C-alpha cells in the first residue's frame, strides 16, 4: 500500500461511500413487515385529514429508526478506531474502558430509584445511562493518569478493573432488586434500536458528526500515535493533548450511541478492522470511511433484525455478531497477506 493519499482521492472515496450509504438507506426504508412503496407513501401527501398508514410508517417509524442506526453505527465505528489507535490494542472496542458497565449502572440506578418522569421527551433511563457512561470514562481516565502520563497499559487496566467492579455492582443490584424492575434494565441493556423523536435525533446527529470531524482533524496525530507515544513525541506531536482530545471525543460519541440504543456489540470492533484491512491504516481515510461503513453496516443489520423473524424482532446485536463475524474472518484471511496489522 505505497500509494499516496491525495485530497482528491480521499474526497472521491468519501463521496462514493456516502452514495452507497444513501442507496442502503433507501432500500432499507422500503423493507419491512408491511410492504410499502414510495409511490403509496406520497400518494396522498398534502391532504391533511386522511390517514395514510404507509406515510405514517415510512416517516414516523422507518426513517427515524434508520437514521438512528446510522448515527449509532458511525459513532461506534469511529470510537472503535480511536480506542484501537490510542490504546494500541487490536482488541479495543468502544466499550473496553467501562462505558458499557457505567451506562448499565446508570440505567439500573434510574430503574431502582423508580424514576419514570420523562426529561425532554426522553426516558430518564437514557439520561442516567449517559451520565453513567461519561462518569465512568472520566473515572477511568483519572485513574489512568494517576498510573502515569501517556501510560496506555495503566489506562487499559484501569478500564478493565472499573468495568469488572461496576459489573459486580450491577449484578449485586439486580439480585436484590424486585424482579419487575430488572426487566426494564435487561430490556434496555440488550441493545434496542427504535424510533426516537426527531429533535433528539437531530441533536445526536449534530454531536456525532461534530465529533467525527474533530477526530478527523487529529487523524495525522493519531497516525503518529500508532507507533507509540515516544516516537510520536519525537515527531514533535503533543501526545497528551492528542490523547485527551481523542479520548474525550470518542467517549462522548460512544456515550451518545449507548444512551440512544443501549449496548450494541461488535460494530465498534469489526468495522474499523474491516475498513483497515481493505483500505489501509491511514486514519485520515480510516476515520471517515469507518464512520460511513459503520452506518451502512448497522442500518443493514437492523433491517435484518426487524424483518427476519417478523412480526417479532431480534436484538440487533445478534445480527451484528452473526453476520459480521464470518464476514470479518473472510476479510482477515483475504487481506492479511497483503498488509499486516497497522503495517507492522
Amino acid at each position, binding site marked *: 500500500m505505497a500509494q499516496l493519499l491525495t485530497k482528491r482521492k480521499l474526497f472521491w472515496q468519501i463521496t462514493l461511500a456516502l452514495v452507497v450509504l444513501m442507496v442502503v438507506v433507501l432500500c432499507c426504508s422500503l423493507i*419491512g*413487515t*408491511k410492504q410499502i412503496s414510495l409511490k403509496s407513501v406520497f400518494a396522498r401527501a398534502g391532504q*391533511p*385529514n*386522511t*390517514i*395514510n*398508514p*404507509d406515510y*405514517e*410508517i415510512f416517516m*414516523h*417509524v*422507518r426513517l427515524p429508526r434508520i437514521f438512528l442506526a446510522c448515527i449509532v453505527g458511525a459513532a461506534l465505528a469511529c470510537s472503535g478506531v480511536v480506542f484501537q489507535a490510542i490504546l494500541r490494542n487490536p482488541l479495543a472496542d468502544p466499550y473496553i474502558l467501562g462505558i458499557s458497565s457505567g451506562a448499565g449502572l446508570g440505567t439500573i440506578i434510574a*430503574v431502582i430509584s*423508580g424514576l*419514570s418522569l*420523562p426529561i*425532554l*421527551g426522553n*426516558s430518564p433511563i437514557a439520561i442516567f445511562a449517559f451520565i453513567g457512561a461519561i462518569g465512568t470514562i472520566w473515572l477511568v481516565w483519572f485513574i489512568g493518569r494517576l498510573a502515569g502520563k501517556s501510560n496506555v497499559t495503566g489506562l487499559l487496566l484501569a478500564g478493565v478493573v472499573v468495568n469488572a467492579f461496576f459489573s459486580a455492582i450491577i449484578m449485586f443490584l439486580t439480585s*436484590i*432488586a*424486585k*424482579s*419487575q*424492575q430488572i*426487566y*426494564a434494565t435487561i*430490556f*434496555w441493556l440488550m441493545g434496542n434500536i*427504535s*424510533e426516537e*423523536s*426527531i*429533535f433528539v435525533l*437531530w*441533536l445526536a446527529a*449534530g*454531536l456525532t*458528526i*461534530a465529533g467525527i*470531524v*474533530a477526530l478527523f*482533524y487529529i487523524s495525522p496525530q493519531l497516525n503518529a500515535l500508532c507507533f507509540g507515544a515516544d516516537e510520536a513525541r519525537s515527531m514533535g506531536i503533543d501526545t497528551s493533548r492528542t490523547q485527551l482530545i481523542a479520548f474525550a471525543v470518542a467517549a462522548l460519541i460512544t456515550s451518545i450511541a449507548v444512551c440512544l440504543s443501549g449496548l450494541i456489540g461488535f460494530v465498534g470492533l469489526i468495522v474499523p478492522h474491516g475498513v483497515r484491512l481493505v483500505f489501509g491504516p491511514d486514519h485520515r481515510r480510516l476515520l471517515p470511511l469507518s464512520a460511513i461503513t459503520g452506518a451502512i453496516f448497522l442500518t443493514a443489520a437492523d433491517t435484518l433484525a426487524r424483518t427476519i423473524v*417478523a*412480526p*417479532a*424482532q431480534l436484538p440487533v446485536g445478534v445480527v451484528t455478531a452473526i453476520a459480521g463475524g464470518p464476514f470479518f474472518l473472510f476479510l482477515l484471511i483475504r487481506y492479511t497477506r497483503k498488509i499486516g496489522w497497522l503495517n507492522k
Partner: protein
Amino acid sequence: MKKWWYLLAAFICWVVAGFSIFDFLPAQNSIAARPYQEISRIISTAPNITEILFAVGLEEKITGVTSDSTYPASAAEKQNIGNFWQPDIEAIIAAKPNLVVTLGFPLYPQQQNLADRLRRFGYNSLTVFNTEKVSDLFDAIEKIGIATQRQGQANALAADIKQKLDRIGFLVAEKEKVRVLYVVQRNPLRVAGRDTFINEMIELAGGENAIGATIQKYPPISSEQLIACNTDVIIEPTMGQENAELLEQSGLQYWSRFKNIPAVKNKRIYVVADDAISQLGPRLPEGVETITRCLKPELFENQQ
C-alpha cells in the same frame, strides 16, 4: 486552531437550526390523532386485554390482537400484530387503530415503550394493568369501559366477576387454610411470592402461600427453604405450549427427592394447564376455582 472554531460555529448553527425547524418538544399534531371520535378500531397488545375487550362486547370493534391471544377462540380471526413481548409497531399503524390498549410500566417496559412511541406519533393509547394485583383487573375493566363508552357492560362484567369470587369465598369460608407453593419453574426452583396476584388467587381459593415475605416477586428458593416451607400442596402451571402430562411425568422423579414434604408424601402435586391462572383477566374466578379444586377437592366431590 481556526478549524476548531469553525467546527464549534457549525455545531452551534446546527443546534439553532434544529430548534427553529422542529419545536423544542416533539410534535403531537399527527393526522391520526382525532380525539372524541367514536372508538371503532381497537388494538390489544396482550391476551388478558383481549379477553376484557371481548367480555365487554367489543368483538366487532377489535381490529388487531397479539398472536398469544388464544381466548376466546374467535380472537384468532383478528389481525395479528406480533406477540405481547414484541408488538410490531408497523402492523399496528397499518391497522389504522384509534385506540391501542397496552400493559403498563414497570412490569412491561417494552409495552410502555410502544405506548410512548405511539403517543408521540399522535395515536390514542390506553395503559392498563400498572401493577399485578386483583384490584388492577377491576381498574383495567373500568378504564377500558370509560375509554370505549361501554361503562354499562364494564360494570356488569366487574360485578359478575366479584359475584363469582364471592361464591367461592363462601365455599371456602371457615375452612382451614391449606399451605400451598406455586412453583413457576423447577431449575432453578422459583415460586410465586407474596406480592403477586397468584398469591391473592391462592388466598381467595382458601389457601395460604407457604413461602413468607420475600424481596423478589417470584423468588428463586433453595432446597432448604423448600423443605422449610413444609407445604401441603404444590401447584405447577404449564408455561406456553408445555405438555402437562410430560411435566407431571418428570415431576414424579424431581419431587421424589423431597420425600418429607407433606405435599410429596401425600401425593398432592397438581399440574394445571389453565391460562386463567397465569393471566390476570376476566376468567379470574375460573382460575381461582381451579386452585380451589387442588386445595380442597373434597368441596367439589358431591357436585359431580
